[in-house]
């Protein structure tokens, strides 16, 4: 253990706790103890403090007791002469630092100083993962950094964190040697799909400034989140880690030891300190080590080698100029590689032979019209994609053919028709897997930097940026991406792949007709697939890496609550990985066809939930409802006064008639707990014939987030018609007409909502 690090960390912690005390006293005097304190859109108060102490800080007056806890964790600075083990004291001081930093950020929120404003005049991308190419604005608040990640985004990333697509996060603090190095470090992390959190500065200059100057798109969509330009804002990274345990691990505030161990074993994160390291950075690093997150510095600092808190080394020094390599870019690459080794992050990188960087972190990248070289589909042209199974002999593996003119024939900013036809052959391939694989085209193509893909089937819309085209990206590369990714990700069912890109108008007509015929056939096949028509359902325990007692049971008429896995996906996943998270569950004897009890399903759930769930009803929310991990697209909750249920979408931050927002409700619905009357669901379950069939189905929905009503209008109308009430959607309240029960009831009565006259729920 390094006395130098212990000294600086303990000194930094003491100074920060002192600074927090001064600031708190000032704030209490100026603003008063009842001034509310809240981070953006979170139900977890100040999450590190909540997680580690159980204290719910909602106003300034709640802070003094936290400050006392922080003080009690401080220790005397090590003396020059006496050798002590220091590690325990250093770790304690680290936690004191985190408490103080979170208090200071909370106070800054109370003063309206967070999220931090940035003087640089560039654009910051904010928002969800689906973004229209027509979105040309600045996004979010323009010149404001992100601040803490909200609960909605944490849950949206949940499925990627648990299925390994997103292996972990890197908290980068400080400023890189040059802009070029900053970009390379971030690109290297993005290519490995590691979330990048940015904070800190050196001499006033932050890596955030460096990336902005180089035109790197920052935001949730590109996995690069700028927290703030000082090290205090790095607390948001640890808040994210703490909330992962609270959200997905089913833990409660105050379970400090469990939360820290959860992070050590399940959240693959590390800290990368760029540039000189001051007392606060040492102290904050000590805080991160408590979570099992190692710290790697690109300057000369003492090291802390294995002692057991992190998996391997605790603090590593890798002076940038001494890293072997021909140039700085190579050194940056090696630095990132070392970080990954030290944390033990498991990463699978697929080499894709294209001239632009490739990785899931580029999936959310936008190509704005002014940056666009060419587009396919959208308003002006047609674009479709079609994947079909073919005979072994008819497929030449790896062959990519372009039939028709290339992009060079179209002027800059123009558009052209395109069809992507993928033919696959494999011994285990089945016709049912065609749509499952076809949907992957969206993710695979989007992974290329400078390429944007939206939609699917014959409403696909693809843009190539000028930058990508300048680097040599052309039509053939779409094929190369698909060949590489299908082999890498679906090698178990796909042996041979060939791709044909059509731009020739006659060929497009011909293949579009074939594709549409196939789409219709698949639609019909899906519609005919019912829970009664199959012998087995599938489990999904993917999220058990995060929510250890949760089990999803996926049936043809009930997709996974994350919305990402339907019955066919699970079936394909089982073929790909027979010992994986999607196992077939024979239905066995049907114990109750209305509520959806099956004896073998119950047996499976008991075992897979480690005994925490005894039985599950597939079609009821009021009796043994299915548990949830935390990745749900929407939450349902009973509204007793209206004799029905409300559905709130993950994207809806507004208040609901239950008196809680989505974030607060999520605390009740998640973590593998079975709570009658509350359930997390995939949004397309709402239009299923089996949707809470035992409780009255869709007609029981009395309130629904408007975003669901709008984005699923056609599907919901069709489902309402099927239920015998075509105007049902207009009778359902939303946040625009009611956010309380008192506001909602007159609306329901005026519209004659059917739930009011249905049999009582209780």
């Amino acid at each position, binding site marked *: 253990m390094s006395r130098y690090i212990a000294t600086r960390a303990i000194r*930094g912690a003491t100074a920060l706790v002192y600074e927090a005390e001064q600031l708190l006293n000032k704030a209490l005097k100026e603003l008063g103890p009842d001034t509310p304190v809240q981070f953006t859109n979170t139900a977890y108060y100040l999450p590190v403090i909540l997680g580690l102490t159980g204290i719910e800080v909602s106003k300034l007056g709640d802070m003094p007791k936290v400050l006392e806890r922080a003080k*009690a964790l401080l220790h*005397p600075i090590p003396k020059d002469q006496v050798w002590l083990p220091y590690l325990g004291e250093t770790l304690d001081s680290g936690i004191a630092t985190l408490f103080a930093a979170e208090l200071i950020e909370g106070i800054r929120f109370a003063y309206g100083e967070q999220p931090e404003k940035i003087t640089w005049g560039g654009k910051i991308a904010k928002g969800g993962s689906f973004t229209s190419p027509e979105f040309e604005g600045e996004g979010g608040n323009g010149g404001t950094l992100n601040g803490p990640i909200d609960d909605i985004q944490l849950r949206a990333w949940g499925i990627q964190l648990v299925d390994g697509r997103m292996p972990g996060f890197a908290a980068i603090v400080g400023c890189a040697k040059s802009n070029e190095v900053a970009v390379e470090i971030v690109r290297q992390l993005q290519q490995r799909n590691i979330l990048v959190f940015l904070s800190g500065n050196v001499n006033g200059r932050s890596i955030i400034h460096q990336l902005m100057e180089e035109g790197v798109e920052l935001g949730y969509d590109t996995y690069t989140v700028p927290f703030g330009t*000082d*090290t*205090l804002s790095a607390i948001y990274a640890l808040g994210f880690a703490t909330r992962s345990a609270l959200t997905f691990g089913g833990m409660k505030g105050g379970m400090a030891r469990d939360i820290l161990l959860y992070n050590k074993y399940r959240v693959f994160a590390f800290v990368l300190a760029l540039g000189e*390291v001051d007392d606060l*950075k040492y102290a904050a690093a000590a805080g991160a080590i408590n979570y099992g997150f190692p710290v790697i510095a690109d300057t000369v600092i003492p090291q802390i080698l294995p002692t*057991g808190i992190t998996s391997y080394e605790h603090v590593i020094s890798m002076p940038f100029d001494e890293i072997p390599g021909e140039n700085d870019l190579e050194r940056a690459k090696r630095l990132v590689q070392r970080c990954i080794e030290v944390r033990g992050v498991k990463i699978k990188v697929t080499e894709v032979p294209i001239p632009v960087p490739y990785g899931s972190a580029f999936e959310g990248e936008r190509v704005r019209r002014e940056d666009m070289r060419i587009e396919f589909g959208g308003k002006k042209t047609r674009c479709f994609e079609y994947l079909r199974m073919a005979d072994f002999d008819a497929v030449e593996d790896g062959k990519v053919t372009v039939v028709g003119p290339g992009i060079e024939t179209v002027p800059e900013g123009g558009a052209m028709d395109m069809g992507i036809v993928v033919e696959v052959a494999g011994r285990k391939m089945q016709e049912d897997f065609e749509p499952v694989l076809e949907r992957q085209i969206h993710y695979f193509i989007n992974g290329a930097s400078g390429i944007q893909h939206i939609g699917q089937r014959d409403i696909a819309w693809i843009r190539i940026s000028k930058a990508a085209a300048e680097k040599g990206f052309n039509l053939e590369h779409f094929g190369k991406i698909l060949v590489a990714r299908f082999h890498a990700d679906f090698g178990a069912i796909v042996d041979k792949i060939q791709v044909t890109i059509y731009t020739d108008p006659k060929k497009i007509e011909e293949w579009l007709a074939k594709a549409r015929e196939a789409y219709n056939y698949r639609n019909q096949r899906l519609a005919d697939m019912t829970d009664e028509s199959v012998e087995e359902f599938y489990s999904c325990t993917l999220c058990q890496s995060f929510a250890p007692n949760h089990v999803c049971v996926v049936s043809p008429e009930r997709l996974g609550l994350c919305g990402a896995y339907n019955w066919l996906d699970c079936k394909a996943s089982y073929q790909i990985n027979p010992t994986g998270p999607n196992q077939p569950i024979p239905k066995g004897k049907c114990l109750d066809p209305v509520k959806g009890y099956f004896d073998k399903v119950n047996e499976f759930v008991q075992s897979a939930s480690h005994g925490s769930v005894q039985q599950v009803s597939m079609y009821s929310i009021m009796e043994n409802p299915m548990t949830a991990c935390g990745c749900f697209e929407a939450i349902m909750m009973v509204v007793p006064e209206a004799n029905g249920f409300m559905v709130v979408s993950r994207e809806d931050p507004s208040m609901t008639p239950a008196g809680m927002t989505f974030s607060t409700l999520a605390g009740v619905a998640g973590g593998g707990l079975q709570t009658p009357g509350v359930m997390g669901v995939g949004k397309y379950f709402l239009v299923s014939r089996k949707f809470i069939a035992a409780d009255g189905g869709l007609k029981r929905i009395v309130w629904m987030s408007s975003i669901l009503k709008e984005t699923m209008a056609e599907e919901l109308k069709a489902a309402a018609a099927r239920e015998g009430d075509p105007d049902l959607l207009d009778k359902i309240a939303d946040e625009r007409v009611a956010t309380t029960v008192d506001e909602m009831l007159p609306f329901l009565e005026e519209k004659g909502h059917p739930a009011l006259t249905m049999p009582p729920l209780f």
Partner: protein
Amino acid sequence: MEHVEFSVPRMWADHHVPIVRKALLGIPGVEDVYASSAWKTVRITYDPARVNPNTLEKALADAGYPVGVELELPTYPEQTKDNAMWYTVAGRMTETNLADLKMSGDHRKY
């Protein structure tokens, strides 16, 4: 151009740096500032015809970062068995917890 370097002990973290830089860069004649929170020093490049070190020193003091003045930290009592957090909250563990050992990874091999 001339350089001057001041020791500024109160600039001990990077959130102090922008305040120090702003205070100095606003003075006519100051060309460049390197403020290091790691070494708690600030190196200023300035035009001696327009500004002198005393003015710079005063600007630092006005911003709350007087030259050479240490940050006076309160002394917290040394934690003892009676009041240390690890005794009061959960009881300090002095033996290896078997749960930890079971979950521990490859680092035990070192």
